[in-house]
């Protein structure tokens, strides 16, 4: 069953520049998709159409059969988005408050909010930091807090925009294992990154983007030899096998 269906989606920025150019995409429930491409290729613009932060100018986006243009509020519950800059995603004054922000918007009861927040925080391993101020967390912890904020909405699809940027190695490992465990629990995962080597081994599918278009769509094994030509770093193992330079 397709959880995401995009048909002929085009987006222009106010400057007139094309952000997305006739995108067609179907993603099945439970898939792990990596969207990669160089800066400015349209990855973030595409992701922002998935939960109605940007609306289609032409074409359509459907999530679980719901048209995003007509059901933005409902779709935002189904599609959780973890932004590139975790700092700008932090809204609450404590870790608990920040995770509670989404469920409060859904008008849930205090008891239910408390339950969802506790569950989300323990899922990302931040259960011991409920009263901590988010600004004092490390970069990896902030990213996990952002994930908890999304999990508390109980989404079906989770979209990550450059989840590994500005993270040290342990932080990157924590976030990656978080993404993988979310995938294991049945969530559909979309990861937009230009840092393919970190995730390609876990992906079911890779989308390569350039100039607002999906130029390649396939399994990692099929596409790895080509990614370099599209401005994406080739995984080290792949480079060693081919004997080529960086």
């Amino acid at each position, binding site marked *: 069953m397709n959880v995401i269906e995009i048909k002929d989606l085009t987006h222009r920025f106010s400057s007139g520049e094309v952000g997305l150019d006739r995108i067609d995409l179907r993603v099945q429930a439970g898939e792990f998709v990596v969207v990669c491409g160089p800066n400015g290729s349209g990855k973030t613009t595409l992701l922002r159409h998935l939960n109605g*932060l940007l609306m289609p100018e032409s074409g359509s986006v459907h999530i679980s059969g719901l048209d995003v243009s007509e059901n933005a*509020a409902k779709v935002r519950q189904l599609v959780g988005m973890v*932004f590139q800059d975790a700092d700008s995603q932090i*809204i609450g004054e404590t870790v608990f408050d920040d995770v509670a*922000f989404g469920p*409060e918007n859904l008008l849930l009861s205090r008891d239910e909010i408390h339950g969802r927040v506790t569950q989300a925080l323990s899922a990302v391993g931040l259960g011991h930091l409920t009263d901590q*101020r988010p*600004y004092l967390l490390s970069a990896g912890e902030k990213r996990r807090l952002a994930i908890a904020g999304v999990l508390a909405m109980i989404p079906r699809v989770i979209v990550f925009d450059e989840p590994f940027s500005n993270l040290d190695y342990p932080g990157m490992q924590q976030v990656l294992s978080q993404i993988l465990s979310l995938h294991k629990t049945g969530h559909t995962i979309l990861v937009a990154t230009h840092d393919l080597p970190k995730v390609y081994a876990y992906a079911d599918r890779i989308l390569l983007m350039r100039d607002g278009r999906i130029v390649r769509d396939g399994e990692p094994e099929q596409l790895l030899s080509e990614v370099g030509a599209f401005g994406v770093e080739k995984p080290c193992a792949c480079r060693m096998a081919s004997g080529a330079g960086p």
Partner: protein
Amino acid sequence: MTDVTVFSFQSGNTWLHGLDVRVKLAALVLLTLSSIHIPPLKLTAMIAALLCLIKYLDLSFITVLKELRFFIVLLLIIFATRLLSASGVPVYSFGPIAISLDGILQGGVVCLRMLLVVLLGLILVASTRYSEIKRAVEWTLAPFPFIPKRRVATMIGLLLRFIPVIFNEAREIKDAQRSRAIEVRKNPVFRIVKLTVPLVRRTFLRAEKLALAMEARCYREVRTDPQFNFSKKDGLILAMLIVLSAAGLVF
């Protein structure tokens, strides 16, 4: 990790944190109003009490002083202006400049009042979540039919949420400029412009990102707000505040 301004919520379990936010707002208003009439000695005692509360909240005096340094400069300017403009019997004169006891008293009282209000604000912000302040603003505006209370409350709440962010942005910009020898430029206007322009730009960009993040998590004006917890203790403190303020105004 980053430094966080003391003008932001500091999590804790003190009785100040547990106090009903409406009582805290009432304290802010009542004590500010009563400070207009009370004599300098009582004013000093009130400020001493507030400093004790700041210590109780575990805020560092050095950090508070550091963050209030520009405000202290402003107070000094106000003090100097009052000192020189007040009439009275001079206790010291230097050429055309005469300093009177009245001037010292007037300047001191004005500065103490302003300091009192700022310290009250600091205690309120440090011990109260912005969502609670937002809820209290909404509650206060409820009797006024033509004011969009939820929107006003959200704006105030976000403003409070933004204070530490703006402080951090300013600190980062200053550090970046210091690393490129801005201190060589002695013209303060040049330095202020060079700080303000990128700060405003970054603040707007940050606001835009925050708005997007809020929208992505289904933000709406009608939401599950924090509950008020008005207890006997709150009632007692409110009654004490009313009595003390009335006494301050009358005597």
